[in-house]
């Protein structure tokens, strides 16, 4: 199993839409795919029309009184399952902190039994720096970081890369990609073009800011599913093709 996680310290940068569309594309390729909506706001669950509720809440999952397996729901799409969000996930830091030992590795351990059942797991991480995000970084093989093309967000990427480089043992590959790119803004254009060529680990494919992507919350489905020929869907497909490869050195 390969674990992908979408992460950014900031919210509203296209993290969930990326997770939802890439997970859908993975499943459409025939890979058995699981998306875990870790964000207590439950946006990914909403987009798949699945109630953001887990029996027993996050506590039952973290303490192991309920297995992830029991909480998984099938989406409307073949090969794609979802582990829904739950409002109690907002306390997940406390729950993870209470874990006996290695509190930063708990999520990875919980995911281990899923390895036989899925080819790809996507973790949609809540925006923050917390024990949850640290757990996600330890569990992931690939860290997908959506970036708004600004100088500041590039700095954040540097900090994140440095933080991950400090891990002992297994480190995720960091794959950043530009998100919500506004083609009318010169600065967006420049940063997108320059950084993708200059820096390692930045995808060449940007995800543009498009109203079609916003329509996802009306259609309650991935844009790659309801408008597969749209510009937005094409961008996600190109990004998915790219992040399945190793990043440039």
């Amino acid at each position, binding site marked *: 199993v390969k674990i992908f996680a979408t992460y950014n310290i900031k919210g509203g940068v296209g993290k969930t839409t990326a997770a939802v569309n890439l997970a859908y594309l993975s499943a459409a390729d025939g890979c058995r795919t699981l998306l875990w909506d870790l964000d207590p706001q439950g946006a990914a669950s909403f987009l798949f029309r699945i109630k953001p509720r887990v029996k027993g809440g996050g506590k039952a999952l973290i303490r192991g009184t309920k297995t992830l397996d029991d909480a998984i*729901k099938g989406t409307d799409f073949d090969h794609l399952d979802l582990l829904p969000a739950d409002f109690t996930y907002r306390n997940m830091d406390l729950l993870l902190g209470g874990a006996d030992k290695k509190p930063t590795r708990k999520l990875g351990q919980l995911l281990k039994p899923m390895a036989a059942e899925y080819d790809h797991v996507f973790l949609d991480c809540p925006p923050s720096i917390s024990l949850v995000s640290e757990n996600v970084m330890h569990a992931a093989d690939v860290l997908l970081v959506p970036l708004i093309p600004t100088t500041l967000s590039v700095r954040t990427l540097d900090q994140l890369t440095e933080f991950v480089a400090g891990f002992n043992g297994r480190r995720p590959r960091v794959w950043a990609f530009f998100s919500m790119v506004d083609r009318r803004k010169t600065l967006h254009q420049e940063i997108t073009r320059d950084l993708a060529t200059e820096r390692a680990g930045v995808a060449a494919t940007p995800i543009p800011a498009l109203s079609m992507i916003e329509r996802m919350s009306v259609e309650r489905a991935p844009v790659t599913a309801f408008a597969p020929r749209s510009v937005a869907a094409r961008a996600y497909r190109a990004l998915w093709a790219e992040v399945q490869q190793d990043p440039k050195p």
Partner: protein
Amino acid sequence: VTTGGLRDFVADTAEGEDFSLAAVRSELSTEFTVRQEPGAAGSGMHRRTWLDTFDWRLYKAGLTLQFEQARRGGLLVLSKADGTPQVEQPVTRWPRRPGLAEDLPPGPVRDRILVLTSPRALLPIVKAASTVSVNRLLNADGKTVARLVVEEHVTVTAPTPNSAGGTTAELPPRLAVAEVRGYPSQARKAAGLLASVPGVSHASQSVFIAALTALGRHPADYTSGVEAEITATMPASVAVARLLLRLLDTVELNVDGVLRDIDTEFLHDLRVAVRRTRSAIKLLGAVLPADLAEHFKAEFKWLGDVTTPVRDLDVHLLGFDALTEQLVAASPDDLEPLRAFLVRRRAREFRRLAAALRGPRFRAITDDWRKALLEIRDVDGPRRRRPTAAVLARAATGKAFRRVAAQGDAITSDSPPETLHDLRKRAKELRYLLEFFAPLYDQVAYRKVLSDLKQLQDCLGEFQDSEVQRHEIRDLADAMLTDSMLAGRAAPAATLLAMGEIAAKLALSQAEARAEFAARFARFAGPAGRERVRVLLANETQGRP
């Protein structure tokens, strides 16, 4: 991802009313939004073939093998009898139908069935064509919480050997509720609604079994066993006629498979039935008209003899890999010329066998024998009242046992091999008699005697087979030398040396079997063994009507 746990229903069209999908949809609409899903996974035309060996080895092991044809290649699915899939394996091309499991490409289905079916071929038992459509059942959020799978226009066919026509039947439509993971209660609810639609009922049979029933077949309708329908009190002549008719059925059922050369076991089963027939004529023929027994004794000897060369070569070829694995000095490749020689020789002998089985003498045997036996079975004249089957069984079996015991007792460590060969024949006759009259016996006592006898027979068989094979290897070596000289090629020395090594191995296992003989015989025919046979035959005389 939908999980297993299909809830299956049959739409009963027998009531004269046409099955209406509209009624089903309207019932489901009380709880769900029903939406057609064209192009859904599993929808469209379905072509399936169920496969098993001629003697139903998979079915008897509680398994069902299904080949689902796709646009390119297909999928082999092995399921439990209740329909739970066990393993599956894609196959790009079904090798040749019927095929051996070992001809399949490596994969989990092949791994699971190879030992079970080998050396038998997989035959198409039933083919089905149907149209499948999928409907999504949505909840108030528009989320798919279950699926309704409708299979209509289910046409089933029993393939015939020459693929011309075959019987066809139409099965009623089938409905199934497929669960969506995490929504088990919704699937239950949908199944409950379906069950309440008039004309829709829970499916009690799988499509496979329903198809067999519709085509007038029964699963496991072939067995190589005797299993004649006889009772203790019926006249002995009637019982013997029934027995022989059953054996004749087995001969005839296997002829087609022999002629199409599907697998080696058709000929094997045919030969066993012929041997049993010959033993029955010899040991029980006194209750048949004397001229009849005399004539068919010769005819079945002829039939047995014409089938021998091919079977001997089959045995060599089937055991070939096991033989080469035992080689210590020579390399398995050294024996490849022998294998090629055996294959050529078999092809030649097979043509002779096929000509005999297609010829007038064989047809005359089967036709005349059946006619004569039916007459005996059905004409119940007063002179045929005595003795009863039970009396005949006791007399013949007791005599055969005493003969085995006496001949075995006389064997010492100095006795020549022929005495053991002779004992093997007597033991086989006893075994056949026990099997012929099995329905008359107490089953516990029967199994006890049979199990000891089997042990003794295995030992005698090992002894004789090793000896026979050793002689055959020498003959084959001679033949290979002659053949290759005729063809202007020298027989490879390495091959002959490897054959020598095989012959030495055979001599060794023969010696081992000889060493074991005394103990096995004592177990079967010692005081305890004699008592077991006495109990068996005593019980039998009180036989059930």
